[in-house]
């Protein structure tokens, strides 16, 4: 029986304040690659991993969302509270709690450790970020702290290779019983003060002064906003200017590959499937990989440096004018990458009404899947010239589209919050220390992004391209037909059938066709257009030709109308699915889809009409 128990994996859970490095430690111990960043609230649900200690003991490790207290105030904190107390559905209470503290912020983190200690469960304390604490001039008497707390205390630098070896050694022989209650009737705050006085010495405060000086600029109500605005502006300029050479290289590769396949294979259905379907469809989207990576490079640098929570703090007043708190900033910012994690990150918002509003406006944030659509249309219809000899016009238009989405989101939030009772939610935000981004982490983050993008191209886009190719190639035109073959195909029929709905906003039947598979994911519309034009045109090299084809066949008014559509339309099944899960029903999904499609149609209609009036119609 004892042998059986010995063979069962030890159930341990990582707990601690937000941004103390739990997920970095989890990744270090289990070899996982969960997302880490230098701000609070990155982990919003429990993650599970496995590890083996040096002596061969198996450990099942849970990474729990950060919490400031075991008295939960938000859904993510409730997960931590329930798991620690053994009340989480389907999850037995952990046999060992590993409480992670940031050595740079012991005043706050020790308070949580003492709360966890009061649970009376076996626990280990890990002093993480010891390197950063030393840089700040902090000296921590670890043996004394261990003696005072009455639980094993080990040190770690979770972001460094082998930085958690002491913890691994300790997991070989973990404590089996909980700590004895602390003597006396001292309250937690007094205990923390005593522990700090006894165990921590602070001989120098040089690093803090540098941070304070930086914060004086970055958090300044005027300069801070200007810095934020400049950072965002440069980001969108970079997306266009830096990405052009690698995009040209990928484009040349795709075109060359298409040519090679056409020469190798004889004329026939297989050649048409590969060249007009797969290569035209997937190749057109894959070209946008460099732009997406540059966008994420900026976001990752801002995340790692510790700037993002400061931006949230700066924007609190603007968010408040729309009825939101700065706490909505991180979920909304995550939605610039993808609305799915953004909507999940709303679990850190305590107020249910604020949370729901943030969920409803998150799909308005310009996710990276919109980037291929935007850049395709901008490249086709906006002249590539500089403004004032300094700014790229393409970048300016892209920046304008992002700003339009942000303003729309704020207006929608204001409307949604108008009817309710006004409640005061002061923003309490922990500002992490500034950190130079780690090149390895940046590389890993970009690699993960590239894998995510390419896996979507390899699955969603390739399969849609193949299906669209089939639908646009069959049935074949009847003998003696004079119109283009695609007009007789299923795609042609569907496109012409839907056209009356979208004709008032200036869409062509090809756009109507692209919008249907584009419901799966926004970037699919680009590959769908490429496939439709490749199978429908005499020149089969649509992967390389889509931009000139669009600028020749569409009017400026049509392009602007489609851009306006994509600012609002919820063309993403995954986003709607995650809204259903986070709100627990279809009601909010229906509300979101209805109001966003309504806004999209209205915006496209106005854009189309205004553009026609200004002379942007078909020539």
């Amino acid at each position, binding site marked *: 029986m004892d042998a059986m128990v010995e063979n069962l994996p030890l159930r341990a859970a990582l707990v601690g304040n937000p941004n103390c490095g739990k997920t970095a430690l989890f990744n270090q111990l289990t070899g996982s690659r969960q997302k880490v960043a230098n701000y609070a609230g990155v982990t919003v649900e429990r993650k599970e991993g496995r590890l083996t200690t040096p002596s061969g003991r198996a450990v099942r490790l849970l990474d729990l969302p950060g919490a400031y207290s075991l008295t939960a105030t938000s859904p993510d904190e409730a997960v931590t509270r329930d798991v620690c107390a053994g009340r989480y559905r389907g999850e037995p209470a952990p046999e060992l709690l590993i409480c992670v503290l940031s050595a740079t912020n012991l005043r706050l983190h020790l308070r949580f450790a003492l709360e966890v200690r009061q649970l009376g469960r076996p626990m280990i304390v890990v002093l993480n970020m010891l390197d950063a604490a030393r840089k700040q001039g902090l000296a921590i008497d670890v043996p004394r702290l261990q003696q005072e707390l009455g639980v094993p205390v080990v040190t770690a630098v979770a972001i460094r290779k082998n930085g958690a070896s002491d913890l691994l050694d300790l997991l070989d022989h973990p404590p089996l019983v909980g700590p004895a209650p602390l003597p006396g009737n001292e309250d937690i705050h007094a205990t923390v003060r005593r522990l700090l006085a006894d165990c921590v010495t602070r001989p120098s405060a040089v690093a803090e002064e540098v941070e304070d000086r930086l914060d004086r600029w970055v958090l300044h109500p005027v300069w801070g906003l200007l810095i934020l605005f400049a950072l965002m502006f440069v980001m969108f300029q970079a997306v266009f200017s830096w990405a052009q050479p690698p995009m040209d290289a990928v484009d040349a590769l795709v075109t060359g590959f298409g040519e090679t396949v056409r020469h190798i294979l004889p004329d*026939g*259905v297989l050649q048409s499937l590969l060249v007009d379907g797969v290569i035209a469809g997937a190749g057109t989207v894959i070209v946008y990989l460099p732009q997406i990576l540059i966008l994420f490079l900026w976001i990752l640098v801002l995340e790692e440096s510790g700037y993002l929570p400061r931006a949230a703090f700066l924007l609190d007043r603007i968010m408040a004018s729309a009825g939101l708190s700065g706490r909505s900033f991180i979920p909304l910012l995550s939605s610039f990458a993808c609305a799915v994690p953004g909507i999940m990150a709303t679990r850190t918002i305590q107020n249910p009404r604020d949370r729901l509003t943030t969920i409803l406006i998150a799909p308005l944030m310009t996710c990276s899947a919109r980037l291929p659509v935007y850049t395709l249309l901008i490249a086709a219809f906006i002249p590539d010239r500089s403004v004032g000899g300094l700014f790229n016009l393409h970048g300016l238009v892209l920046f304008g589209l992002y700003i339009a989405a942000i303003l729309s989101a704020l207006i929608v939030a204001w409307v949604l919050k108008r009817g309710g009772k006004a409640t005061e939610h002061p923003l309490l935000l922990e500002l992490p220390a500034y950190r130079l981004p780690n090149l390895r982490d940046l590389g890993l983050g970009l690699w993960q992004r590239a894998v995510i993008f390419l896996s979507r191209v390899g699955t969603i886009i390739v399969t849609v391209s*193949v299906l669209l190719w089939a639908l646009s190639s069959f049935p074949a035109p009847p003998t003696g037909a004079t119109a283009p073959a695609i007009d007789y195909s299923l795609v042609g029929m569907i496109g012409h059938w839907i056209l009356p709905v979208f004709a008032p906003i200036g869409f062509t039947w090809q756009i109507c066709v692209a919008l249907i598979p584009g419901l799966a994911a926004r970037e699919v519309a680009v590959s769908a257009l490429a496939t439709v034009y490749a199978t429908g045109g005499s020149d089969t090299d649509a992967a390389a030709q889509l931009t000139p084809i669009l600028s020749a066949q569409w009017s400026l008014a049509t392009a602007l109308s489609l851009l306006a559509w994509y600012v609002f339309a919820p063309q993403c099944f995954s986003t709607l699915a995650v809204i259903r899960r986070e709100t627990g029903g279809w009601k909010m999904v229906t509300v979101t889809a209805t109001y966003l499609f309504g806004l999209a149609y209205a915006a496209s209609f106005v854009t189309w009409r205004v553009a026609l009036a200004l002379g942007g119609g078909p020539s």
Partner: protein
Amino acid sequence: MIEAFIVSVAVVACALYWIGRLAPSVTRTLWQGAGSVLEVVHAPAPLRHAVAGRITTRSGSGCGGCKGCGKDGGGCH
């Protein structure tokens, strides 16, 4: 003839992929049918296990971009 066969297989595979994403219960039924057929014809165990794995696979609700989507929680990156 071979070309037409390859193209048909590719199109059917892509259609099945999308049915699996949009209506997982339909594909589960298809896999259950395939599993029954394999049992009857005494197909090799690895093949039967692979099909059984398909029947029990749950669909996630993430964007399909990362491995986390297979989990109950939906991922996520």
